[in-house]
């Protein structure tokens, strides 16, 4: 089992990730689309379970956290890829997206990267280290 302090930090981080994903998708997006909604729902549930496990230092915490991190990383990479590819497609159709468009896309990517790429990677590495004797 990883250290108490690390469990607390990652537990809180996963709680925050769950809140950001839920808020971003269900309050931030202007309309509903089942694939995105279901993915967000599943990820929120996994992050919450992982947070609960880590904060309570449950024996299953590491396993659930690995699944949550892998899911977050996969969805994060997919989201950033789709954003980048869509921006490229729109840029091909409409020409330069302008400074405003570039800033918006960069901000969206910047918001997604810490929670859905960087944090899962760090956590996966930490979980791996915790497993090593």
């Amino acid at each position: 089992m990883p250290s108490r302090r690390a469990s607390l930090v990652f537990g809180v981080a996963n709680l925050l990730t769950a809140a950001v994903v839920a808020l971003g998708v269900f309050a931030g997006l202007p309309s509903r689309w089942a694939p995105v909604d279901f993915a967000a729902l599943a990820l929120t549930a996994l992050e919450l379970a992982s947070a609960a496990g880590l904060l309570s230092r449950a024996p299953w915490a590491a396993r659930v956290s690995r699944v949550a991190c892998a899911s977050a990383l996969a969805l994060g990479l997919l989201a950033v890829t789709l954003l980048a590819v869509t921006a490229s497609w729109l840029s091909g159709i409409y020409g330069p997206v302008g400074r405003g468009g570039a800033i918006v896309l960069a901000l969206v990517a910047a918001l997604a990267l810490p929670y859905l790429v960087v944090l899962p990677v760090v956590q996966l590495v930490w979980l791996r280290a915790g497993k090593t004797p």
Partner: protein
Amino acid sequence: MSLRVILRVLAAWALVTVVMCVVIRRVFALDVDEAHPRAVVASMWSGGSLVTRAVIAHAGDRDAALDAALASHPAGTLVYESVVGEGPVLVQPEAALSASLVAGRDGLAVTLGGRTEYLTPDDLLSRQAYDDGVRVPSIGLVTGVDVPLALAVLADRFGTTASDLVERARLRRARFLRSVPGDPPARTVTPDSMTDDDVRGAAVAAAQFLVRGVDPEGRFRYLVDAPTNRTLPGYDWPRHAGATYFLAQMAALSHDPEIAWAALRAASWLRDNASGACGPHRCIGTGTRVDLGSTALAVIAFVELARTDLDRGYALLVPGLTAFLRAQQRPDGEFMHEYDRNRSAPIDVQLLYYSGEATLALSRAHALLGDPRDLDAATRGLAHLTGPAWSFFGSRYYFGEEHWTCQAMDDLWDRAPDAGALDFCLRWQAYGRRLQYGPGETPFDADGAYGLGPFVSPRLTPVGSRCEAGLATLDAARRAGGDPAELTLLDRQMRRSLALLLRQQFRPGPRHLFADPEAVYGAMPGSEVDWQLRIDFVQHAGSALVRWLALSVGVGNTAVTNSVDKTSKP
């Protein structure tokens, strides 16, 4: 999974994503060559309808069908749409196809069974199919091509079904460039080339467009579909009053009796059909719930009619209406925007625009009649609008599009100057400058416009209304001795917007796509591709032009009168 493996996976992902982005952009970007069109779609249009079409190699090439159509429709117009670029298009999902065509520029080249048909921008514009595809109601966004309509047109030409087309045909995006043989190249108005005569001509044409739509009783053609010249359903008292105000402005400036007569008819319609009691006061509105904006804009229109001596009698109606406006004001300066006639009580809700309109109306009424209660109410309204009403975390970085407040600020400046309100308006304009499109930032003719991004054709009404407010701010800032550098920036910002309005006004617009070009001459469309003409579109643009003339040359009646002769009839 070790750190090394994760980093390798991430590096591979980043590389693949970058390569995909580069490839996708390159595949979908058009290689436009205007000098060497791939084909020329020659169309004969008459009365806004397509008579016949031929695909020719070069503009000017003869074609038997075109010759026959020219002979049978001597008043028709031959139009060339040159295919200057072609590229792949995503057919599925429908939203992708919808977003794949740049509004007003792109169409489709569709090949089935060895035969190619073109769906050109003129085909789509004549059916108003741009900016009518993907709808996001929560943010009021409509963008993209109406795909079912586009496919139905093509299916009809191929004698098949839309689903068959999607399944079997090869669809490609095509960029078109329109030219009309025999038409002299139109002068392009730019911020630098725009003259006061340009502005005068545009303002008079805008007023004359409205005049043609006022019926004998004084009711406007509220919403007109330009391609068919059909009057569409709907009506709105605040917009009726706003259009009446613009006609009154132009009647005074132009001395055109037709404009004056239309202004008076429109005002009398308002007075006789919409005026009623709201408790002890008079108000404008026909339902049991009456809004503040109708009365406020009616006051502005009536004051203008009286102020300019078109009919001094309208001054008599103003005190009763301003008493209603004052009664709707809260102690903190905010207005209650509705009134319940059944309960004889105000409804304390706030809607967009009405507080600014009421403040301006009270200011104008005071300038005409000198009632100190109107000045006090207007001053408190302005202080609230530019103070507590726009005070929240982030209010320095975000502004709405309410455009009456700054007109009220300017109107009050000589009688009750409010430096805080001027500062608010200058900050709003500076914010607008950051959002204003520059040349080449979008695929559209959008220099001077404000928009939602490069994928949506910019709306022109916000350009007009922000110009009204921006020019009012410029006027007040000059009188206040504002920072010359900031005034120069604001002046440039306004010039860019006004030049855009002048370029986009139907003077005459693409005549061949209109059933009755004379009927819509002088109108201001909703956008470059939205040709539903509502009366407030031309009112906001027109009132902005009037403000520019007042600011630019302190225009007198003579200056505009002269321009009537040049532009009186299309």
